[in-house]
């Protein structure tokens, strides 16, 4: 975290870059439950772990889920992999929080700056823990389903 938003642009740059990436991904990528498409063309990359073992790796479906979330299809994204919506909403929340922090830091009120920083760190830690649990929990469910023959593509 930077010393002061007016002097150090770290929070602004990171927040703005995350939002820019989200907008760019929304414009360039599309997805269904089978594939991700870049400018309408399918990306034909298969997971080597899945090919080798028939089981999903921890990131199988994450790209599709992320792109579906950015496309507003939250239900499909959650069904594909719960970590996708959680990551996207977390990244967008982080971006908004960083831009808000940068605005507060410009006010040159140390108390507000410290309070905002403390709030972001605590919320970030809580979110991080929840995101990891969601990610690994979702993967564990898919893994067990695949082991019992219920593998989704």
């Amino acid at each position: 975290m930077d010393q002061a938003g007016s002097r150090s642009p770290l929070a602004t740059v990171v927040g703005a870059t995350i939002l820019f990436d989200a907008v760019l991904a929304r414009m360039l990528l599309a997805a269904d439950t089978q594939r991700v498409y870049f400018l309408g063309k399918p990306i034909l990359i298969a997971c080597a772990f899945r090919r080798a073992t028939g089981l999903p790796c921890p990131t199988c479906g994450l790209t599709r889920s992320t792109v579906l979330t950015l496309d507003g299809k939250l239900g499909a994204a959650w069904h594909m992999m719960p970590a996708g919506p959680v990551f996207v909403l977390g990244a967008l929340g982080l971006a908004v929080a960083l831009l808000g922090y940068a605005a507060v830091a410009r006010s040159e009120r140390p108390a507000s700056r410290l309070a905002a920083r403390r709030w972001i760190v605590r919320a970030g830690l809580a979110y991080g823990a929840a995101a990891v649990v969601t990610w690994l929990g979702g993967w564990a469910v898919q893994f067990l389903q695949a082991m019992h023959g219920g593998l989704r593509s």
Partner: protein
Amino acid sequence: MADGTAYCPTCGAAQPRAATPVPLGMPVAAAASYPAVFAAGYASWGNRAVGFLIDGLLVGAGMAILYLLAATVLASIAGLAGHGAFVGMCCMFLLLFPAATLLVGLYNGVYLIAQRGYSIGQGVVHVKTVDAYGNLLSQGTAFLRLVVRAVMGFVPFLPALDLLWPLWDERGQTLHDKAVNCYVVNNPQGI
């Protein structure tokens, strides 16, 4: 200031010319005697970029080793050696890049920087990483700097922006330097 002399913005006293690149936020007491390490000036972007590329090659070598290990294990599991088992390891790259960055970085970016002030790449181009007081970074600060850099690697375009930032930053800092308030300065003697 027509003769090029710098003056302290707080007390108005003339400052030694060699001490111009003083970090912002330094206490007045410390500013009265600028750390000698800043006298050589901030590292140029070119030097930093060359050092970054050398350190990046080390991370690439780490990735290659991890990739071969992972691919060998997968090929062995499926008995697919020679049948395209190495194709499409996108998730592996997603995991291998941060893993290699952290593994190589723990030695190159944390241990070496905390012990002597420069990574292998920085040593080649004679630059050094110091805190606002001219001291070497602590292990914890160097580790935090590495973590910030690795996390930035997940955000598209941010690593490029981070590398280019010293081009227009008055103190020649990258974004991950700003995160821990450190500076990269010239180190002509290589000490």
